[in-house]
């Protein structure tokens, strides 16, 4: 489950990038945007918590995702590089980085805690 949660954001972002590139305007795109902005990279990073507390997850995932979105968008604006697509690419990069950093379920269960 943890591995699936870590990788789901990547699938969502890839699907959204595809729709943005081909400029497909469908209700699915709106739904996908909402999902991506609320769960990427929160789902991946929150997978680092080994807590069974569902409510903690439900709070942490959008909190991480919306904060990352806000900080990415503001930083890009300050740098003069902001466009929605660039911002999405940054979110994708952060998510990929998080996948690399956050241990998978198997690794997490085998690694000793610090």
């Amino acid at each position, binding site marked *: 489950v943890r591995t699936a949660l870590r990788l789901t954001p990547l699938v969502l972002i890839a699907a*959204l990038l595809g729709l*943005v590139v081909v400029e497909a*305007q469908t209700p699915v*795109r*709106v739904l996908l*945007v*909402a999902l*991506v*902005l609320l769960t990427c990279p929160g789902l991946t*990073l*929150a997978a*680092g*918590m*080994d*807590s*069974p*507390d569902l*409510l*903690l997850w*439900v*709070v*942490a995932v*959008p*909190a*991480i995702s*919306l*904060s*990352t*979105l*806000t*900080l990415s*968008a*503001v930083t*890009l*604006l*300050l740098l*003069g590089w*902001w*466009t*929605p*697509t660039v*911002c*999405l690419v940054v979110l994708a990069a952060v998510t990929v980085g998080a996948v690399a950093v956050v241990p998978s379920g198997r690794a*997490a269960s085998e690694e000793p*805690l*610090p």
Partner: protein
Amino acid sequence: MTVAELRARESVPESPVPRLGGRRTAVGGAVPSLLALGAVLLWVLALRPVDPASLGDVGLAPARPLAVWAAPALLSVAFVVALARRAGGPFLLLLVVALVVMLQATAAAVEPEIRGFVSYRHLGIIDTLSRTSELHSGLDAYFDWPGFFAAMATLDGLAGGDALRVLAHWSAPVLGLLYLPPVLLITRALTSDRRLRWTAVWLFCLGNWVDQDYLSPQGFALLLLLSLLGLLLTVFRPRVDVDQEPWAPSVRTQLVAYGTVVLLVAALAPTHQLTPFAAVLGISCLVAVRRCSLASLPVLSGALVSLWVVFFAVSYLQGHLTGIVSEVGDLETLVDANVRDRLDGSPGHVLSVRLRTASTLLLAAVAVVGAWRRWRAGRQDVTTLALVIAPVALLLVQPYGGEMGMRVWLFALPATAVLAAGSFFPTLGHDVGRATWIALAVVLVALVGGFGVSKYGNERVLAPTTAERAGLEQVYDATPPETPVVAATGHLPWRMRDYETRRTTTVVALWDEVGDANGVVDLVRAEADASPTGTTLVVFSRSQTAADRKFGLLPDDALQQVEDRIAAAPGSRPLLTSHHLRVYEVAGATPGGAP
């Protein structure tokens, strides 16, 4: 007293609550589910489109069929019965979701346009960021705290179409639902009594009448703040005896939670002027009373917030620092702006303000009783009291345009709701009598009544008609984007585009300068002279007239005098005339305008 003793007094494990009405079931028997179903049906069937022009000075509450307000009242009764019969968490959650939808979605469901003239201004700022990809720092405060707008511009660009406008229309129920998980997390961290916890969540929903949940930075920032507090209280509250808790967070969980907390503070800093300071105060209070183990967090969060203000909002500070500093600790201005000024206006307005105040005082009084009863029962709600008291310090710093009282109420609401719920369940693990359940139902129903007026009391002003919204868009389309706009008052769905190019002011502001209609016309013509197009637009609308009457913004008939003189002024011509909207184009004395 040591930390261990303090903590132990606050987190005495609660014995199981005695069962009322038999075994615990998923929905607490047939009665609550039937009541809830009836409430939902009542609400859905009573929803009918409303014409904002037909509303009175008390707003939406008296204009809607009684069933619209009876439905959440009935739902509150269903909630009390379900709680008394120990219904399961999922059913109680379902009831809370239904309550949020009923309370927050009513206006969006019955009104034709996005409510709240500020929503249109925020759409204009998002439009400017999207078009120019630039921070217009110094244009106004919004661009110095652009976090929310940048995030929404990203959403707008990625989703395309009308997605942002749809979100703006439904933002109150969307934010109301997004607030629920962090509020549940906060209440769960503050008490292990499930009756108290769910009652607190219900009271939070009923106390959230402040109407900051439109498409706004403060509505978004509140979500971040609630998440921050929920995480801090859940993961970083010192635990004396881990056996008292269902789980102790591992180092890995603490690392992720710490990173999230820092991320949240960093995101809050560029998002809103006020909320980051409420966050720093809340964190500092929790650390000061030793209810948060992250001793360095107040310094770190203070540094992050200060960093933004000093380095990125400096243009705002340069223009406003003197004004801000002069109001620090000015209690007379504070009381005038937050209390006395709000009691000016039409009888309907005064009535709605009094009802709003009464409703707020009721919840506050119940919270005081709750704190007292729990203290008498041997509970020291230090954490809860710290979260109530922390934002109050903001009141001493700034009147915030007369809104600080309401904002402080909102920041303190989750903890206030927990204290208020404690007045019904002061003794943990002890059964309560039928009278208590009836008292709880009565208070909830009274608060539902108060909510209708508190939240929707200004609807005649806040809800534009389609004629107003579409007419203004038509005028914006037909005139150069540099043409300035003088609106009778700011209560108008304007500034939804050309935000950075159209200078704007109001007749109310001009009247404050000169004090008579002829003087206002002279200033309007001077504004036209200074504009690149040599003209200015002057807008009079239904919502502005309603605002003037309701809030008493100008002397009697002043607005009509100004409109008559504008219509008769040399070089003035009507661009659009309808029952709800009149727009005049006024030429300046210099043909062609400013070079």
